[in-house]
């Protein structure tokens, strides 16, 4: 007779600290694995934004979603106060185009985006889910915490029988700012990374 055994595995703290038994990822099927420094180097603009509108339509022979953002803070580049970002996929009439790892945004949502200019004059997101970091309130971090889209799903490793997350996950915003500043400083010889503005986060 089938028997069920149930356990909840891995504390949240362990989730944030441990990732044993996993072969280091070198590439995604869709995305090259990029560190924060890689992303910072590749992006022409890095901004903190708030989504103000999103709509989908046909363009270049396929359905795209165009999202307008108010720029709240600039970390790299000098984009306008309001920008438009194109992401492949969306809904047009009764047709839907679905592409995994292509981010979607809701009005009012805040994010930090790594952007590059698209040939059409708007922006695209560097490495899609990897270049998208959501800012959300979180009980452990009242000022907000940040999670990379590509690290949203807890990954189960049968070797350790634990869940873990990869990438930047639930990081205090100030700590993310510090890391980003350090990554940008690496690209600018002689530029010093600013001093941390907050205590180090859980990772």
């Amino acid at each position, binding site marked *: 007779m089938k028997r069920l055994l149930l356990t909840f595995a891995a504390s949240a703290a362990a989730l944030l600290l441990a990732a044993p038994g996993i072969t280091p990822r070198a590439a995604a099927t*869709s995305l090259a694995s990029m560190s924060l420094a890689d992303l910072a180097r590749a992006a022409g603009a890095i901004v903190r934004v708030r989504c103000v509108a999103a709509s989908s339509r046909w363009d270049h022979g396929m359905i795209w979603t165009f999202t307008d953002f108010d720029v709240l803070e600039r970390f790299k580049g000098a984009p306008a106060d309001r920008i438009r970002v194109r992401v492949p996929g969306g809904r047009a009439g009764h047709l839907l185009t679905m592409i995994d790892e292509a981010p979607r945004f809701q009005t009012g949502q805040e994010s930090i985006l790594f952007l590059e200019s698209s040939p059409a004059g708007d922006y695209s997101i560097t490495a*899609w889910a990897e270049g998208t970091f959501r800012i959300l309130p979180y009980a452990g971090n009242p000022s907000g915490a940040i999670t990379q889209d590509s690290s949203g799903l807890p990954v189960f490793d049968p070797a350790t029988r634990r869940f873990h997350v990869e990438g930047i996950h639930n990081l205090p915003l100030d700590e993310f700012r510090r890391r980003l500043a350090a990554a940008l400083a690496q690209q600018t010889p002689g530029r010093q990374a600013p001093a941390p503005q907050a205590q180090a986060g859980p990772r």
Partner: protein
Amino acid sequence: MNRQRSRSLRRAAVASAVLLSAHMIFPSPDAGYGLNYVVADMREPAAISGNTACPQRMRMDISTAGGVNRQWSTSLGTNPVSILTADQTPAGQLNEIESAIEQSFAPWTGVSGSALTPSALSPLAGTSVQDACAVDEVNTICFNQSDPAFSTGVLSFTRIETADVIGEQVSASSPPSSFVGQILDADILIRPGDPTTQFATPAALASNPTAYDLVSVLTHEVGHLFGMGHSGVWPAVMFPFVPPAGTFLGSRSTAQSPDAPLADDDRASVRTLYPGPGDSAYSGFISGRVLPANPLALSGQPAGTTGIFAAHVVAMDATTGAVVAGAVSGWSCSDPGPPVFDGSYNLQSLPVGPDQEYWLYAQPFDGPVETGDVLEQTILCRNTLTDPGWPAQFACVTPQPMSNFSVTKVSGP
């Protein structure tokens, strides 16, 4: 970790176990893992909406032999070469790449207990058209098509076209959809002309250790083509990240074991999405609910939310330690819908037998996670905000993933 919270979660685990037993008799409607869904347009007449607001799985129509058409563009990037082959003759290159494509389909059509078999596929055709991956009814693989979707870091992607009504066409000449969620066109685009990114056929991989294994990449993308979403189980083929350059995971497909590259989680997804008629070996399921010990934890969620949304639930074979299946839990639906967010999970297509035992692991999503991050393009709810004029009786709001508590580990293996 708060001791009281720890005790509460132990109780939640016990409560879930009780519910698991009940659901083994009365399965919850639907919550397959690693699959994508679409909600029908309920503003349309029942004849074309299907008359249900329950999310429908995206999948190919395999009701007719050869119904899944396939072609690939033989136009290859030469400056730089993006697809490396052992045979350098033009004909030999094409043969080697075509063989790699066939190797990428074979695992998905070789899973026992599934209706997705080689007979569902049309012969693989070739076209010399460079930009062959247009939105049409032809499922195409392109290696040399520049596409504005390729931002830095995007190596490849699969573009799926589906519809939220019956009778929709992707082009004037294409056949209409026969069910909601039918995949009408699926194109795989591999990044062209990038000096930092190369792919190698199995024969060329060993001598090109900085190249990615073409078959690994294509096998994952073909999974998307058939409707699979990403897996949170390592080392499933549908895990979002492929092996490091110069390597491949698991085993190559063979005539005797065509599905050798797949993990059991991949196989369970295929059997769930394309169930085999009369299959009894994989007819098991485990379903239940993941609940907060303190219902007040749900107070910030949309009305009607009675369980945790979302959690990653994994079933492990208690004897072998192999992960058999995983699912992102949190909802269920009974026709005519809409979905309810009751914390349900449903692991389907599991091996059955008198000595079959499973360990079940569950991890509620922690921290600030957006639904779309995890469920990717899956759509569970529509309402008047997303769709003006949406009928109130079919409206719902997808909760934000729970993030206001953490979990603890109780004794396990």
